[in-house]
């Protein structure tokens, strides 16, 4: 499998990353390199090996259901670009 320039642009768009033509060509080469590695790995016989969902062989620790976080809105909003009536303001998203 190899990625086209259009694939790279589409991935960039989904990730909301602006990529110019020169950069896209660079990413295309790098990403295709990664796909090459994956292809090589797929040659390994994995019969009987359970798929792994995490690199560490541990299980998730659980937290007791309790409210432990105080309201820190003021501190958080002090570094936000724009707020009003307690809301974070962002460029309009509805079309």
């Amino acid at each position, binding site marked *: 499998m190899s990625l086209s320039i259009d694939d790279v642009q*589409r991935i960039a*768009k*989904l*990730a*909301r990353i602006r990529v110019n033509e020169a950069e896209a060509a660079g990413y295309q080469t790098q990403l295709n390199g990664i796909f090459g590695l994956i292809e090589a790995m797929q040659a390994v016989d994995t019969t009987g090996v359970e798929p792994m*969902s*995490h*690199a*560490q062989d*541990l*299980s*998730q*620790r*659980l*937290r*007791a*259901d*309790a*409210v*432990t*976080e105080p*309201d*820190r*809105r003021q501190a*958080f*909003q002090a570094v936000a670009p*724009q707020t*009003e*009536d*307690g*809301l*974070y*303001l*962002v*460029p*309009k*998203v*509805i*079309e």
Partner: protein
Amino acid sequence: MQWETVIGLEVHTQLTTQSKIFSGASIAFGAAPNTQACQVDIALPGVLPVLNKGAVERAIRFGLAIGAKLNRTNVFARKNYFYPDLPKGYQISQYELPIVEGGHLSIQVGDAEKTIRITRAHLEEDAGKSLHEDFHGMTGIDLNRAGTPLLEIVSEPDMRSAKEAVAYARALHTLVTWIGICDGNMQEGSFRVDANVSVRPVGQKEFGTRREIKNLNSFRFLEQAIDYEVRWQIERIEDGHKIQQATVLFNPDTGETRAMRSKEDAHDYRYFPDPDLLPVKLDEAWIEQVKAGLPELPEQKQARYRERFGLSAYDAGTLTASRAMAEYFEAVLAALPARGENAKLAANWIMGDLSAALNKAELDIAANRIPAKQLAGLLARIQDGTLSGKLAKQVFEAMWNEGGEADAIIEAKGLKQVSDAGAIEPLIDEVLAANPKSVEEFRSGKEKAFNALVGQVMKASKGKANPAQVNELLRKKLG
């Protein structure tokens, strides 16, 4: 052409935890914007999610209640999409290994019973809220809801009409509130329904192309939206068009569904296991402990009411429409002697006069004015013959309007049924003396004349004489 409707539902139930699924912020409804959004919920760099045990426990409870398989190892995944009320840029959900797989729920439509299969139920976090009105062309973001624990319950496409879809949604609503994992408050968005709807010619095996109606927050809207959508799809196809897969919204004001403007990449979520969260393991001891804490479930109660009390499927279904209803019914029974025989009487009063009064006052059974013990007191007076059916209704009305115990009401209003032969006999003598013609007719074999005489005696007693006793004494006198 005859068309068949195919419906599957996806229901988002908000879980009844205190705190969020991955942080210790509160999920209480109605707080001022962003006062319940901590560093994890607003996705500050470097924060890590820590899974709430209470959310996992509720998912286990649900899985056990629908007879599902619980995945002893289940995995959280990232569902990637861009929207400002999702500050991480992805929603933590479950994809390939959800916590609950399979299971089923029985529904009743008219006299027919049907089993709806459940595909899966997975844990995920809710997003925040976007407010589009009047912020100088900007959008306001409230992240209080971000990170609220949800269990998304996905059914198989097993429903064939809007009525069946509503019956399933109601049965699911009853179950999740019954086992206490969701408060069921649809106005506050605690129980939100998405309906996948398609049509196909009757007899065709393959499904038609489906459209998904999003975010229905009442059973009435669910039914209206599906009915409209089905008519629309059939018309489109009959006019020679093809149905395009789409997400649509229902407008309650017009009763119509309308396609949302779809972005080309909207459904490319690029799921992958979340490296911030390890696989969740459920151990047997925990599952057993949750199982032991489950209450008797609606389906089990229905079976018991039918077998042990001889109630009809309809009665058993109505009495288990909510846990509060079933508990009330059982409390009334417990307060009456010889429980088995009283079940039908109690069921009739609860489903009849009491439900009518509750409906009229727009009250839920949980806000019922008549405590179970008081209703039992009234029923006991019917059983021991103190009250006729007619008098009992008067006592009930007084009890509903003014409160008080049945005995006190009977006493105060003089509603006691007269079962004293010494009091009834003089009335009978009077009636017989005044109606020689009826007596004559009865003696010549006319049974109708007897009923007329009973009626006269009842009238003379102002409705208070025990009808059975009047019958008996009258026959004795005439015989």
